[in-house]
């Protein structure tokens, strides 16, 4: 059995090795690759949530954008919920599929579904709680989204087919 001091020494060594190898700072988030686009899932920050999560039974799978999560929802049979980060920290838009029918909460939610390079997908495919929030989001990312139109749930489902 290892002692406490040897464990601390090991931890220090490993953290040292990782830092030396160019590791990023420790985070509280668990970072993964998106199962659809295989790119890193963009992590939440103090001010903005970015991780999209699909909840299916006891599974909680993270995606890089709401497009990837909706697209992959086809591969699950049964009820599921997608937690799509919005413009409000800690208040995701919830997309639920129950007995094959989709619904969204809050009902005022609109989506950006603008074709962008997938490296920017968390900006180009985004859920927002209101139309006003959509306008602000597009204005803040005008270089990428200048022609973006607000989409309802049905339109977003069509985009992510």
């Amino acid at each position, binding site marked *: 059995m290892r002692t406490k001091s040897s464990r601390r020494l090991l931890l220090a060594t*490993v953290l040292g090795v*990782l830092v030396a*190898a160019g*590791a990023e700072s420790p985070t509280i988030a*668990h970072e993964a690759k998106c199962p659809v686009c295989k790119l890193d899932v963009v992590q939440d920050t103090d001010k903005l949530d970015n991780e999209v999560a699909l909840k299916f039974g006891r*599974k*909680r799978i993270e995606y890089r954008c709401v497009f990837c999560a909706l697209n992959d929802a086809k591969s*699950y049979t049964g009820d599921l919920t997608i937690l799509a980060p919005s413009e409000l920290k800690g208040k995701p838009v919830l997309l639920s599929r129950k007995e094959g029918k989709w619904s969204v909460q809050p009902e005022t939610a609109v989506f950006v579904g603008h074709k962008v390079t997938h490296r920017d997908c968390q900006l180009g495919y985004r859920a927002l709680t209101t139309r006003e929030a959509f306008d602000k989001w597009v204005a803040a990312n005008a270089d990428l989204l200048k022609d973006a139109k607000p989409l309802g749930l049905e339109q977003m489902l069509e985009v992510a087919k």
Partner: protein
Amino acid sequence: MTRPFWRKWEETRKRGNGRSGGPAEVPISSFPHFLISLFLVAAAAAGQPPRDLPPLPEKLPGWIRNTDRNHIFYRRGRYNFDVYNVPKLARDLNAVAVGHAMAYEDLVTGKAGQLETKTFGRIDRVLKNPPRFMPDEAAISPTFGRRYGVLEQVFDWTHILHAQTVDVLASKQLTEPEKDREIERLWKFYFESVPYAVTPLPMNMEFLDGQPYSAAFRKKHPKVNGLFWGYHWLQGAMYDMLYRASAEDQRAAYEVIGEQYHKTELYRTDRPFMPMFAEVSPIFAARFPHIANAFDNLHMLHDLVNDILASEWITDKQKDDQITRAIWLLSAAAHRGEAPGRRRQEAGGSKQEGLHDHRHFLGVPGMGMMTGMTPELMWMPRMGWMSMADCHHCSMPLWDGEDWWRNPTVTAGGWSMRVRCPLCARDMSAETKGRSLLRIPTEKPDRIVFVVSDDAGNLKTSTPGVVFLENEGSHTGCDEWSRAFSSLAAFAAYVKANPKLAGAKALSFEDWAKREGRKPDTYVKPKGPSENPYEHRGHQR
């Protein structure tokens, strides 16, 4: 702390292997250099750029040119053919043997052009309808056997080690400690009784996969290469599934592993490199690193041979010589006196330096260095960079030394990862799409709780009476506050011995399976020296 198994094995190896007489050395003084010159001129005239082929070593052991027919068979054992205790696995392994033999026979009988179509179709039919009994590969690939007799004997010899170690693990008669001892005996028999043993040292895969002909096969025959790598995936993944598992757990686990093999692994053509044993069976590889290395090296020998045979710019004579060289590169004889973890420096910085590079990843003595990676960080497709010495969920150091067996594993989506505690295993499984298999040690090294997760993350186990401790805190201490026990009494004894856990409640499997931990506070995402070390090579050079 006792000596690591790796060191014990290495000391045993250094003491000598009892092979009588040693290899006869045959000078290759009459090598027909003029033939190479003629070929290079002809190739240049035909518009193909001539490439330098590495020469045969100066001296080679006599057995490497043996043309006698040597039939090799199993060592006697009451466990022989116990793989049939897991019937689906046994039949899938029978089909693997047919697939290998069919592809090799077509490759050397002028049918390489139909490998991706007719041959693939024939093999796929066998894989979907596996034979009940193991076929004699020599009967399926007679031409290949006649032409490359020694190579076939090298393959067969290590395949027998594969088969018998699996028989031992699937035995219902042997206890777990008896199985460990028998596997070591089989290794000794493999390593000492004939000269065909493949080296048990970790090899530099970047060097071996960097030959002038490397990647030719996967470029030309991606579907059949996918099948070969799918076989190698199964031949690795089955070990952790069988190791220290009851017969019931083995069969349940193969439902998950077999589905992954048949639905995905056989048909993948996007792998940048062959599956490595320790990637898919990290626990068995930690216990028997020499065997893990030998199997990886055997699989690399398959790749070298495939690439040589698929390279049209190489003449038949050169193919024979390059295959002889490939056998030598991977043979135990070529690395006598060398040690795991070390690099032998060649005088004058020879190009062969990579051949004697036996470094391995930190915490994984059963896996050699790979393209563009460092001993501290490994890169895996779809997973990115990771430290193999740390938990893949919380980044804390994994158990090592005499506690190597305490690491749980999560197997899902074609990979198998070691984690530090049961909570890390459960939550990592919940964050992973699809079915998964969790392997959770208790306080006893030979009592492992096998847990199967369905697509929706519902967990099931066949182990009765298992009890969990989960007093969640910082993951700096998860090896203490998250544990599994074979009984309530074992739980109580542990809590009593650790006063700071006083008052901790024992969780039944059902209660434990419903929980969800917080995201680990200690998690660090490692950043490697490049985005993807295989990117510049693509999947095919």
